[in-house]
């Protein structure tokens, strides 16, 4: 039997919390509000948002770019294009009005990724948008984002839901490794070794799994013990160092 890694989206604890947050955010429909998703890089925030947006109607996604920091107009134009406004007005006033009109009509959920790269004044623009239209805005960012939002009282008071993406836990790793590659851990120490090596970073778990599958295929088994996991992790680390 040869093991392989299937492209599969696994609903880990973070994903389930994210879905619960989105449901709670939808239940307060009608008023301007923010959702906040935060956590260290490599926790799967953006991938979870992509999965949710792709499979849910009325969701739009904008990745904030550092180059917009001097231009609120560029930021608004990116939102306009995302909402399907083919020719966004050049002046900021009409641009804002057209975006607001679209948001009022369809009440989509707007996801803005990495807003902490933008100056704090941009949060006020987002607040104006959500307040004027009732369309919820979900902000996705790293650890500094909650502090940035707290500084803006009016923004923070409209933050109805927030979740922190926690490190990939032992249960998440077992769930992912079993679903994606049908690998079975023979003892808790094996999965703990993988968790320790990855420090809860989903990308490192993926990297380690690729090596683990390679090692297990060479051995002709689907069962991973502590020694096999340690060998796979060592191999992954040496490849990463090269």
């Amino acid at each position, binding site marked *: 039997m040869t093991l392989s890694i299937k492209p599969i989206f696994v609903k880990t604890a973070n994903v389930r919390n994210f879905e619960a947050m989105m449901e709670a955010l939808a239940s307060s429909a009608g008023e301007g509000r923010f959702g906040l998703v935060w956590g260290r890089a490599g926790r799967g925030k953006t991938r979870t948002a992509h999965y949710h*947006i792709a499979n849910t*109607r009325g969701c739009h996604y904008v990745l904030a770019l550092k180059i917009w920091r001097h231009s609120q107009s560029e930021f608004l134009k990116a939102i306009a*294009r995302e909402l399907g406004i083919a020719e966004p007005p050049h002046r900021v006033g009409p641009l804002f009005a057209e975006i607001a009109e679209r948001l009022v009509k369809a009440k989509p959920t707007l996801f803005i990724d990495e807003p902490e790269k933008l100056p704090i004044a941009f949060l006020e623009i987002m607040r104006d948008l959500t307040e004027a239209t009732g369309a919820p805005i979900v902000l996705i960012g790293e650890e500094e984002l909650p502090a940035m939002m707290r500084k803006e009282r009016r923004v923070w008071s409209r933050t109805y839901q927030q979740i922190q993406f926690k490190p990939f836990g032992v249960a998440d790793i077992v769930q992912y490794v079993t679903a994606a590659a049908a690998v079975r851990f023979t003892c808790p120490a094996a999965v703990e070794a993988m968790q320790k090596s990855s420090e809860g970073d989903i990308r490192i778990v993926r990297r380690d799994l690729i090596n683990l599958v390679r090692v297990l295929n060479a051995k002709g088994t689907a069962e991973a013990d502590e020694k096999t996991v340690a060998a796979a992790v060592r191999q992954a680390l040496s490849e990463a160092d090269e």
Partner: protein
Amino acid sequence: MRRPNFAETVRSKLKELGGDGRQVKISVLAEALDMISNKDKRPLYRCLSDLRDAGEVERVSPGVVVYRGKAGAGPDIRSAMWSVIRMRKMVTVADLVELANASESYAKEFLALLVRRGCVERIGRIGQSPTYRLINDLGPQAPADTAKADRLHHIREAKKKAIAQLDEAGQALIAATHAIVRARMAVVDIQETEVDDGEI
């Protein structure tokens, strides 16, 4: 079997004319439903208004709508794949399988269509999988698969050409018949005069 009600008929016609998020003119929709007079069209306007309220139909400009599908249902896989490509800018087939719940073959087929349309380009490989980069973002609506429409268009063009050739051949036949008739008449009209053979 239960007959579909009017809203279901309108919905099915909308899906047929604009199932891929294409814009549909209300006049074309009315024609497809055999509604000619303004009086005939009134129930259609009422039905479209209800569908708009339910979020199933969006009015994009006067007299033009887009069918969005029933609220509550998730987007179709094609829209989900397009959404993933727009968000990530660079994708592999595995990304579309994982994030848009597409099958591997459908993801490959869709990417090939986008390459033909000039929306994405193949730029290399991540591990063993080819990577595609978004180069022409057409907006939130997934590009429609016009292969079927193109085939129909070709068939119609070929038909038109064949009919024109048949017409031409028919005209030639008529002209030839006229010529034969004229020739026959000319032959009949030849006077049978006695020819002097010189004998006394």
